[in-house]
C-alpha cells in the first residue's frame, strides 16, 4: 500500500515536472519558429 502511494506520487511528480518544462518552453517562445530553428543548426557560431 505504501509502495503504491509512493509510485503514484512519484509518477505524478515526474509527469507534472515534464509537463511544466514543456509549458515553460512553449511560453518562452522555443516553439515559435520551428522552420528557423531547423535551419539555424547549420549556421556557424558567430564568434
Amino acid at each position, binding site marked *: *500500500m505504501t509502495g*503504491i502511494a509512493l509510485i*503514484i506520487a512519484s*509518477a*505524478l511528480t515526474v*509527469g*507534472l515536472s*515534464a*509537463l511544466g518544462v*514543456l*509549458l515553460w518552453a*512553449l*511560453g518562452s517562445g522555443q*516553439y*515559435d*519558429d*520551428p*522552420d*528557423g530553428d531547423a*535551419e*539555424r543548426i*547549420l*549556421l556557424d557560431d*558567430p564568434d
Partner: protein
Amino acid sequence: MTGAMTLALRPTDLADDLSRYIHRRDDGVFQFEVAVKGARCANCIAKIEAGVTSVAGVSEARLNLSTGKLTVNWKQVAASPHAVLRRIRDLGYEAQPFDAAASLGADEGEGRMLLRCLAVSAFGTVFTMGLTDAIWYGGELSPALRQTFFLLAASVATPVTLYAGQPFFRSAFRALARGRTNMDVPISAALILSLGLSIYQSVQGGQNVYFDAAVMLAFLLLIGRYLDYRLRNRARDAARHLLALQSLLARRFKPDGEIETVAARELNPGDRILLASGERVPVNGTLESADGGGTELDTSLVTGESAPVRMSLGAALQAGSIVTGQPAVLRATARVEDSLVADLARLLEAGQQTRGLYVRLADRAARAYVPFVSGLALMVFAGWLASGATLAIAATNAIAVLIITCPCALGLAVPAVQIVATGRLFQRGLFVKSGDALERLAEIDLAVFDKTGTLTTGQPVLKNREKIAPDILELAATLARASHHPLAAAIAAAAGPGPVAPGVRETAGAGMEAMINGRLCRLGSAAWCGVTDDLLDGRLWLRCGDAEPVRFAFQERIRPEARALLAELMGRGIAVEMLTGDRGEPAAAIAAEAGVANWCAGIGPREKAARMETLRQQGRHVLMVGDGLNDAAAMALAHVSIAPGTAADVSQSASDMVLRGDSLEPIVEAIDVARKARRLVLQNFALAAVYNLTAIPLAAFGFVTPLIAAATMAGSSLLVMLNALRLARRPA
C-alpha cells in the same frame, strides 16, 4: 529636373513617418519589426542578421523564418529604421515595416494554445490510463482502494479535461450562440457529460468511470485540431500583404515648389507627386510631366502583363504600377482608399468572406448527426424511465449513448485524410494551405486560367527570328546581353552565349547604345532608334549608323505541359476557360495553341473578379489558376485557387495551393487526390457511423462498460487512421 530634387531630400524627412512602427519596450529597448520576404534558408538568416546587426546602433536582430518577421532592437543609440530597411533591400530581400497593431490577430496565439492543450491532455491520458487500467485488469483490488484510485484519477482528469477541452468548448459555444451546431457541440457534450458522470460514479462508489475515455478523446481530437492548424497557419493575412504594397510615403510638391514627404493616405486629388524610377505609384492619377515626354511603367499589378508599358503625358496611371523609366510628376485624381490597390484589397477580403461561408464536410455531417444523437439519448432516457428504472440509471444510460456516439472518429477522420493527402501532394510539388481547400478542389467543374505566367512561361521569346540575318542578331545580342530587360534577354537567349559590346550604355525606359566598328548602334524602343512605329511597346528596334533599322518582334511561349494538362482536365469532365488582361490577338494565339475554346481578353482585375461572381451565381464551382497580382481578387473569389511558385506574393497568399516547381502538371494529380480524399473521408464517416450504430444498442440497454467505451473509441480512431493511410500508398 527631377533627379536633383530627389537628392535634396533629407533623411529626417522620412524618419518621422516610421516612428509609429518603433515600440519602446518596458526595459528601455527600442524594438522595430520588419516583414522580410524571400528568406528561405540558413544562409538568408545569417546574411540578414549579420547585415542588420552591423547597421550603426543596432544591438540585436533576429529573424523568425516561420513568420518572416525580423525583430530589430537598439538601446540608447538611436539607429535609423531606414538604414535597416535599406540594408535588407540591398541584400536582395523585400522589406516592409511591420505594423504590429494591425496584425495582432486573434489567431496569433492559437498554435501555442493548441500545443499547450495537447501537452496537458497527453499527460492526463497517460496518468489516468495508468490508474484506470489497473482497476480493469487487477480484479483483486478492494473497493476502498478502487475508490481511492477513481478519486485520484478524478483529481487529475477534471482539470485536464476542462483545460484541454477549451478549444472545443469555445467553438461549440460560438456555434450555439449563432443558433448552429458543429462537430464541437457533441464533442463538448461528451467531454463534459463523461466527466460529470464519472465524478458522480466515483463519489457514489460505483464501477463505471470514463476518465480515461474523456481525456483520451480530448487528446486524439487535439491531434486532429493541431494538424489542421498547421495546415492553415501559412494561409493568413493575404489582404495585409496587399495593403503593405501601397507605398507608405509620397513626395508632394508644395505650392512654392518645395518637396515635402507625406504619408500616401494624406494625398488629395490635385496634388502633384514626384515619382522616381523604381517607385510605386501611390494613388491613381495622370502623368503630368516627365523627361523625354513620357515614362515606362511596370503595370503587372494592374494588368498582370510583365512587359513594361510606355506612358505618354496625360495618360492615366493606376496605383500599384512601378515606374521603370524616367522620373515623372503625377497629378493625383483619387485618394488612396479610392485607388486600385485598396480596391483589390477590398475585393480580396470580400472573396475570403464568401469562402468563409463554405461548410466543411465534417460540419455538414455534424448538422445531421447532432439532432439524431441527442434525440436518441432522449428516447433512451424516456424509455428507461417508462420501464420503471430510477432517474440515476436512466440518466447514466442516456449519457452512455452520448459518450459512445461521440464523433471522435469523425473529428479525426477528416484531418487524418487531409494530412496524408497534403503530404503526398507536397512530395509531388504542390503546397496545400488548408484542409478544406482539398474538399473544395474535389467539387470543381470549371478551371479558369490566367494567360501570362500561368499558361505561358511569362518570358517573351523572339518571334521573327527567321526574318533576321544571323549577323544582325549577333550584333543585337552584343548590346542585349548587357541588359536585364525581358525583351533584351529574349534576344540574348535567341543568339546564345557570346561577347558583350564594350562600353554599352543603357538608358532606362529607352534602350542601349554602344560604338561598334565606328558606328553608333542603338537597340531599344522605336523612339530611341528614331523609327515611327504604330505599336508603342512589345517590339525592339536595332539601328546601326545609317543602315536600315531592324525590327524585333516577340511572343510569349506556352508552357510545354499546358496543352496536355488542359486535355487531362477536360477528360475529367472539367471545363476550361482563359482570362487575360492582354490584348486579343496574342490571347487568341495562345488560346488556340493551348486548346482553350472559351477565353476573354483585355480584362482587368475587377472584371476577372466579376466573372468569378457570375460563375458562382450560375452554380459553377471554379478552380482559378493565376499568378499576377491582378488575379488575386478573382482567386479569392473562386471556389478554390492555385498559384504557380513564380506568382506574386499576394497571389500566393490569396490562393489555397501553391505549386513549388515550375510545372503545372501537379494540378491534375491534386484534383485526383482531392477526389480520392473526399471518397476516403466519406468512407471514414460511414465506418465511424457503423461503429457507433453497433455500440448504440449496447449503450442504450446499459451494457457499456468503461472498457467497451475505451475500446470503441481507440478502435474506431485506429480504423479511420488506417483508412486514411491508404491514400499515401495507392496511386489515385
